């Protein structure tokens, strides 16, 4: 089964699929409308003052300065301020305590994602977030190194991930679909390629996904995959990556236990397919500059094939 192509995802704040994002788009449309009217009036007045030269009564202009310059803006800004302030408490209110919680840890330049299962276990994955539709979810955001910012434009606003602090973000997806999240705070070399996939799905599907994620990695059955698992261990991949159920327990890089179930590679840099996976292993820095993982150029064709076969059966 080939994973889906990467390109049918939404990354637009103007195409809202969550409560917060929808409210903000409405606000945006009101402000744009008002802004256009104000701009037309002011620029119209200035053009008029030049095209129709001369000698307007000073009293009229006094009214203009007081009315147009002071009173009208004060009234308009006060109403806008009230409207905006009224939105704030709801956007900042924490979700009900039984809502699902997702911990996301920003690492240069990928995302460590942790879910809690009902039996209290912590399930780790990376660069992919799945959410049940029509439920508030709370994100607990931290950073391991520099400041990142966690942003899923279609679902709502962004919140920074700051070393030494835990910030929180509440999102409320209202539409099933695939979305793209990005790091919005400049964080160094591969900032542009620090993205992640978001899938909003119905609750039952979400539960199935989560229970699959909480299982250990499946044992390879095909010959080449077995050999690939062997190579994975021998080449030291486990020093950085975890594959639950094996002795690969590294914490430096992303957890690969269910790598094949993800839609993309390298923090949503490329679609997850055989060709890209091969290329990632052998030409890592060509795909994404600055990555900590060394490029395994010394591997021969068959070794790469085997490792790829092993990784591709980690559903």
């Amino acid at each position, binding site marked *: 089964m080939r994973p889906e192509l*990467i*390109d049918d*995802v939404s*990354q*637009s*704040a*103007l195409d809202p699929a969550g409560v*917060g*994002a929808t409210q*903000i788009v409405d606000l945006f449309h009101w*402000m*744009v409308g008002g*802004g256009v009217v104000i*701009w037309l009036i*002011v*620029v119209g*007045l*200035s053009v008029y*003052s*030049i095209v129709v030269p*001369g000698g*307007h009564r000073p009293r009229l*202009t*006094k009214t203009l*300065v007081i009315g*147009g*310059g*002071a009173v009208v803006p*004060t009234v308009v*800004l006060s109403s*806008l*301020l009230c409207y*905006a*302030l009224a939105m*704030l*408490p709801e956007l*900042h209110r924490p979700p009900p305590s039984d809502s699902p919680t997702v911990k996301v840890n920003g690492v*240069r330049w990928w995302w460590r994602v942790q879910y809690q299962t009902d039996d209290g276990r912590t399930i780790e994955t990376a660069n992919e977030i799945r959410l049940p539709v029509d439920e508030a979810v709370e994100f607990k955001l931290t950073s391991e*190194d*520099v*400041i990142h910012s966690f*942003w899923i*434009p279609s679902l*709502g*606003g*962004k*919140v920074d991930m*700051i*070393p*030494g602090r835990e910030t929180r973000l509440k999102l409320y997806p209202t539409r099933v679909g695939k979305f*793209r999240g*990005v*790091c*919005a705070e*400049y964080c*160094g070399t591969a*900032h*542009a*390629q620090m993205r992640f996939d978001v899938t909003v799905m119905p609750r039952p599907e979400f539960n199935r996904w989560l229970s699959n994620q909480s299982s250990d990695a499946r044992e390879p059955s095909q010959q080449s995959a077995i050999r690939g698992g062997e190579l994975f261990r021998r080449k030291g991949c486990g020093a950085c990556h975890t594959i639950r159920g094996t002795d690969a327990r590294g914490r430096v890089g992303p957890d690969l236990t269910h790598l094949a179930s993800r839609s993309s590679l390298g923090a949503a840099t490329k679609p997850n397919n055989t060709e890209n996976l091969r290329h990632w292993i052998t030409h890592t820095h060509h795909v994404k500059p*600055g990555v900590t993982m060394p490029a395994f150029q010394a591997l021969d064709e068959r070794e790469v094939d085997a490792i790829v076969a092993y990784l591709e059966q980690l559903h």
Partner: protein
Amino acid sequence: MTAEATTTDERDPAAARLLDAWRTPTGWRYWTAVNNSEVGLWYVVASFTFFLFGGILALLMRIQLAVPENDFLTADQYHQVFTMHGSVMMFLFAVPILEAISILLLPEMLGARDLPFPRLSAYGFWCFLIGGIFVCGSIFFGVAPEGGWFMYPPMTTEYQTGVGVDIWLLGLSFIEVASIAAAVELIVGVLKCRPPGMRLNLIPLYAWYILVVAVMILFAFPPLIAGDLLMELERSLDWPFFDASRGGDPMLWQHLFWIFGHPEVYIVFLPSVALLAMIVPTFARAPMVGYGWIVLAAVGTGFLSFGLWVHHMFTTGLPAISIGIFSAASQAVAIPTGIQLFCFIATLLVGRVTKSVCLLFTLGGLATFIVGGLTGVMVAVAPFDYQAHDTYFIVGHLHYVLIGGTIFPIVAGVYYYYPAVTGKQLSERLGRYAFWMMLIGFNVSFFPMHFSGLLGMPRRVYTYQPELEVGTLNLISTIGAFVLAAGFLVFLWDVLRPKSKQPLAPRNVWNAGTLEWLAEVPDKPWGVRSIPIVETRYPLWDQEQFVQDVDEGRFFLPGADEGKRETLVTSVVDAEPIQCLRVPGPTFLTHFAAVFTGGVFILSTFHWYVAAGISGVLAVATILVWLWTGTAWIPEKHEKDVGRGVTLPIYVSGSRAVGWWAMFITMLGDMTAFISLVFGYFFYWTIQEDFPPQDSTGPGWIWPIAALLAITLVWSAVMAARQFNRQNRGSMFYGALVCGIALSLTGGWALLMGPATHAMDPTSHVYPAIVWVLVIWTTLHVVVGIVMQLYCAARRMAGKMTARYDADIVNVTLYWHFIFLTTLITCLVIAGFPMVAR
């Protein structure tokens, strides 16, 4: 020039002497000039050169982003380019150009011969040039900073170990010092160097704006300098100010940076509005409508702009209350901005408008700026900012503000003032081409960015994927950027093209009403033949025979009988003449001082601390020589007839003297930096459960109290010395200073002993680090205070300071008032607060 000088000689010997005193050096000595017309012009040219450099960097970025997944630049190259683009435009163009234009024009607008501290302007300029070249040069060696113009730690403290961040921190701190120097100069210029009669209600609006802006610089730049200091200490000595694992916090940097960074936007914007406030009345042929309203707007914006900084941090997870408070202030600041615009429109409506390229750029600027202002109000609304923050929407917004609000008015200003500075006019035809290319190019380039941002394109990305569907928008932006650049080329050609065959422009070519248009064509180095009495806001329009009276020397200081450079100092409010100030002339000392000061910063970048130390000693020595030879000259007579039967003292001290004001203003800036460090201390207290940490014993209270006691005594000793000097009791004076110096040494030593005797290791935790910083800051000031006391003793010994002419000791006393305050706060914080907190 020579022929003309001879004829002047014969006709009017007073004019000849005046010309002689103010003559610009020729040949290679031209570069020793310190007069505002020369320094101002160099400053303008240098800032524009940096602007062009920044513009080329922008084009490189636009090429890279023209198509998805482009490989024109590597990631690291792109990051260097955008970091340098932002830093160059902000630190090497936007702020310096306003200071440059002000140094060039402010004295002319005030009918002054020069600013009160010409050598300080020159020193500031050379510092700026050296620092600018150093910072810009780094990109050609591939070692430019790549942390963004905001340099957020811990990325810049722990993850970028190259020299780039140090170049940014030290190179730009060096330039900030120059900016503060210029701010001091401009504040004193507006307050004390106005022509007689120019009360506060008659000041040209430009001067009001510049006064506000200079005060803003004074309070906005020091927090950044404090932040730079903390970050450089973390980088070179591993003091953990921003390292969360040892109690530090990266958010402190963000606060300090944006307390600077948001006023900065208005520091850049207000002077450009100030230019418009000069241009609009001229072309409307009518006085500005709503003078009081504009003063309201300038002062109001100046204040409110300090209440906006957190709106750059809306997404850092702050409580909704804090966000709301800053959101509200960010909305409020739109009110004064709107008032200014309506005053301009009202002026145009009242007057009879003459069309010109200046007015085109003015209008184009307004139309553009209003878009930026409106999107600014949008992002000030916090919920919308949660989406727009750090996206291309912001890139679009800020360029509408800065290009519409700053660049267009500055270009209008260049068209307007070019004849006053060079005697030739720019081409209206080329100007119109440039205008339309710039306006269209700009909008084509930046308008689409609002959409690419909302479609999900974050800022500061060196590449983007084709499926993001912003490829077309980005291509359009890139095309627009090149049209904009072409417009600039046309403008540049118009400015630079040879004009020797072109006839000279008539004097006061636009028929303006303000004093800077008194300038003769070609310009004379003396500025104005005589310093006029001003009775209206537009004396050239309203005062009869004004130009003639000025030219024929019927006002003040029409000659230079002693061959000295002189200008008038007037009182702050009523502008009554109180002093005939002698200002120094050409020198190389400022160059040496700038080179050695630059050496301290530049050599430290490469951790060559010994060389940097030597350079620092040389810098101090040069500055002392400069002060010794160039300030507080004892005049040959007490008073001087300045014309019209008025006799003024040549030497004053205390609050009537410009030097006293300079010291006062500088120390306000210095205190602001110090308060920023104190803010850091309490910031750590708010974010930590346990601060000061339970296991920390230092610095105790004994040593700080001892230090405070010693410094209080020094303070009294210095005041006593001032008194003894005034009473001409020499031995008592020297005795007081000897006591002062001994006690200063004791006080400085006691300050350091506090943390030193309590094993406070500054690398272990942020608490000892911040205590050490406060203590070292205070001690360094005490050391400078010792040098000052020695200087005063030497001045009196050398006969350069007497009982009557005592400016040196008076200013040093003022300095010690501030040092006492600094020590008091330091001791209360480091010794007192731990007792309260536990």
